[in-house]
């Protein structure tokens, strides 16, 4: 009996102290990790969407609140001192999990500037082709709304990776919805 109590006490003590230590470490590193993720995950995708931006869209980001309470982070891009596009990240289910896409909108004429894939868990070599330029460049300059060619739009799905292609288009469609809801707020903030 005594030995069982001892086992319980030692294990509980060990687990409790490791729990406290790890939650402390998690709290102290949370800010830095968020910054690193933005730099190394969203950063390259933003550079792909706005190759000729004169500012750093990452540092000027601002979180807007949608009427349904969700918060959306918007990245503005400037050229010649004027706002020429805004980007936001959104995700939709693909084949192996959620595909997150940064979608850039041209604020002056309601069209897409481009997209960049940030995270995905698609099948290597098949679903991951959605991040190839041959697929993503199709989104440049497309007027809203965006749809696959099978759905009456102008985006050709990758053969053999229809579910992944649909996931990307769904993510862009969700971003479009958010963009249209927030458009007034976005323009009044940066223009």
């Amino acid at each position: 009996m005594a030995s069982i109590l001892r086992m319980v006490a030692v294990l509980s003590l060990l687990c409790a102290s490791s729990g406290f230590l790890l939650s402390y470490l998690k709290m102290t590193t949370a800010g830095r990790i968020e910054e690193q993720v933005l730099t190394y995950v969203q950063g390259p995708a933003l550079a792909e969407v706005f190759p000729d931006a004169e500012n750093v869209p990452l540092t000027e980001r601002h979180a807007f609140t949608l009427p349904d309470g969700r918060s959306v982070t918007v990245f503005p891009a400037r050229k010649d001192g004027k706002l020429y596009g805004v980007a936001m990240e959104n995700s939709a289910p693909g084949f192996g999990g959620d595909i997150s896409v940064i979608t850039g909108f041209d604020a002056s004429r309601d069209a897409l500037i481009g997209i960049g894939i940030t995270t995905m868990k698609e099948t290597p070599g098949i679903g991951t082709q959605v991040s190839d330029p041959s697929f993503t460049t199709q989104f440049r300059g497309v007027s809203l709304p965006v749809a696959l060619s099978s759905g009456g739009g102008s985006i050709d799905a990758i053969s053999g990776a229809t579910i992944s292609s649909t996931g990307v288009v769904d993510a862009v469609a969700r971003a479009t919805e958010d963009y249209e809801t927030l458009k007034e707020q976005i323009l009044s903030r940066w223009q």
Partner: protein
Amino acid sequence: MPGTLWKEFSKGLWKELPPFRLVLGLCPVLAVTKSASTGLGMGMAVIFVLALSNMIISLVRNMIPQKVRIACFIVISASLVVAVELLMQAYAYPLYQSLGIFVPLIVVNCIILGRAEAFAGKNPVLPSLADGLGMGLGYTLSLTFLGAVRELFGAGTLFGAPVMPSAFEPFAFMVEAPGAFVCLGLILASMNYLNAHMARRRGEEEPENPRSGCMACGACSRANSPAQQ
């Protein structure tokens, strides 16, 4: 005392070199050695976890009840691995991206639990720390070496810097999974050959190959108790 510490430290560098002599912890050895720098990064994470887990386990070894010792060892090493994961995300994010799932998998790396069970659970703090550092360093050197060989032939670079003449055509095979197996096999074979050669030169009998059973391996705690063969 310094002599025994050195002995515990140095056994991990050749005699009981984890991936190539004990053939332990092979999953990351094969998976993350596409380049020398990822191998080095993985090795550093293992040194950190192994040295600290050996030290902590050795400190608390007399408080831990025998029956739940494995559970306690795993709680300690898992906490250290999560700490490494968080620190790597905060300070070396590109490395974290290239190592991916293999950072959390250090928990189930049999070297960590193996050293805890075979050494740190029975020895004082300083020798345990030396053992952990030595094993970790041996692991790091092995991973960096394998990574360097694969990177050199598979991409023509070393730590990302081009070293091969421009006429060199990289064989992509080496950075793919089969290349890892082939390299590992060649390294194991040449180490066995070297050991046999050195034994001959010392005038000793050649070690039997393949080495006979569990008893030949000094890393296992069973080697000291001949009753369990």
